[in-house]
């Protein structure tokens, strides 16, 4: 992958991995989502009278089992896939690579960046992680799972590069 997307000036892309605790933070988010969904399903079944019948019980248990299997598969996939997520900051563009089976590299030229943002959710705050959001006209992507100081450094670095490109 190193020589992919190289240009005539032949600088390869050096990808840097996300923070080590990003995988754990992501698993916590998935678990919270699953618990909320399960609670919601439990509350909903209290109000459905048909759930009291034998067929209703069977369908509810089938749905719940399906949900658990789905959660386990998704959690396992995320655990493995998150290890491969990485980003790259070059002189003229910023890239983000993700995916396990279908690998994706998203790139934006520095010259086209219109907006840079650093955001931090509740779970991210616990793990001292942040996301960098990069937007151009009609295009954008998020680099998740960076240590907060690194995210701020990436943001500053991008801002300086953008100013340099615009001749300010």
């Amino acid at each position, binding site marked *: 992958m190193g020589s*992919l*997307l*190289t*240009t*005539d000036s032949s600088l390869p892309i050096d990808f840097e991995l996300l923070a080590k605790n990003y995988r754990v933070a992501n698993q916590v988010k998935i678990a919270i989502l699953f618990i909320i969904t399960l609670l919601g399903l439990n509350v909903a079944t209290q109000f459905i009278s048909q759930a009291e019948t034998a067929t209703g019980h069977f369908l509810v248990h089938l749905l719940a089992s399906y949900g658990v299997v789905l959660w386990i598969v998704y959690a396992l996939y995320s655990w493995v896939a998150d290890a491969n997520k990485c980003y790259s900051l070059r002189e*003229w*563009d910023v890239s983000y690579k993700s*995916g396990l*089976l*279908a*690998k*994706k*590299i*998203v*790139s*934006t*030229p520095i*010259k*086209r960046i219109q907006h840079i943002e650093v955001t931090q959710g509740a779970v991210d705050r616990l793990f001292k992680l942040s996301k960098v959001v990069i937007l*151009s*006209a*009609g*295009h*954008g*992507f998020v680099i998740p799972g960076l240590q907060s100081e690194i995210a701020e450094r990436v943001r500053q670095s991008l801002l300086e590069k953008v100013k340099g490109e615009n*001749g300010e």
Partner: protein
Amino acid sequence: MVSNNTAIPTQFTPIFQDWKRCGLISILENVIFGWIGIFKSYIGLGGLSVFVFGFTKSISMTILIISAIAMLIIFASAFAAFWFYKFKIGVDGVEIKSGVLKRQHMNIPLDRVQQVTCNKPFYYKWFGDYVNVVLDTAGEAGTEGVIQAMSGADAETLKNFIDIEKWKKHNRDIGLAVDTITPMIDVKTEHDVLDINQNIITLMLHGLCRNKVIWFFVAGFGVYKNIESMIPAVLQKIGLNEVVTNAYLSGSVLQMTLFIAAMCVLYLGLILIFSAVSSVVKHFNYSLVSSADGYVCQQGLFTKVETRVKSKRLQWLLISKNLPERWFKKQSVKLCQYGESILVPSASVDQTNALLNSVMPHANLSSLEFKRVHFSYVVKKIVTHCAPFLVLSLIFEHVLDRSGWALGALIVAGLLGAGYVLRWYRYGYAQDVSFFYIREGRIDEKLYLIEKFKLQGTCYITSPFMDLFGLCSVKLSFSIKEFTLPYINKVEGVSMLNDGNAAVRNAKKNWM
């Protein structure tokens, strides 16, 4: 407009420094829009029905009083909207205060104004030279500022003022004196002069061709006469004897189905006629000419609309043609930008070539060789989208014993598969030094000509399946659209991305 030989007036005084109201004629427009707004709702339609009913039976005083009250309310609202609408234009931007119950104060900086468009409803001309000025921005809200009923001379002054202020800001940003003539705009030479006009026949043709119902009309008209004997013969041929003898396909149900089909064909025919008429109304007196820094299009029968596209704001050129347009050797060409684009309806081959020479003189369509996406794209789509319907068809036929449903599922699978094969056939891409050329569509063909340096972002996707064939998927993002090229050769995909990024880096001019 400003050219290389013209000095910028440094003492230009904006004429809207104080708060101004729109012209009085805007009250009439607000009344019209008020009525249109009411009649678009069910309440309005219901009221109109009652009113008409009352008129045909006898003129009921109650209905007249209600109508008069409604008219008073609409007029009062229109006057209030006029009274509370004020605008001011200065070097900082456009300020608009509006709203009766919900007050609004809008600021539009001048450099956010992408385009100034003037439109003139037909009832304005009875009261003098008035236009509505529309200020287009690149924001998600799209059009953000409308100044109604401004005099034509003031509107022209306003357009020039906005252009000149942006010119001065550009000079200040690059460290020059504000009145320096800089080649900020591309001044058109004699060879680039464009002048396209479309007559009524061409406009009617555009309305007929652009409406896909022509297909159903043509197909339905041809088949209807023999349909009663055709259906049982086809079903017997493919071995569905049970369906033929089934009570659902005999007697009155078949007659009713054929009657409904005939009514649909008639309805679609009426839509076609309306399409042709609406095309004439919308594009009446169509003209497209080149200006000093772009193109100006004027059209419209009841509402005259003037749209301007600056050359540097142009994002891409779209050439589209469907089958009827190909019969008549016509195609529609669109100059696409943020906000209002310019469409050239049913352009001839000569007009298209003239437009290409003017808008994108370095594009070279004649020597292009389009490459198709790999056939595995079709295979994947058929496996993931059509196969479930094939399986359903088998279940309906052999398990549930419902041949009609099985046939339906088979037809859906067949139509989807045919659609994907057509889409694959159309999918094509090519590139040269300065342009990406992307072709897509199914029965219609759309060709996009995009300058590489306008690229905003890219996406490169591979998977184990694609690696088997040395393929990748590539997404090229531009400001108002993203183009996906699935299952293309990996080397070519990487080359497109690298060339696009290099064009962005080496570009001397702004993408907008």
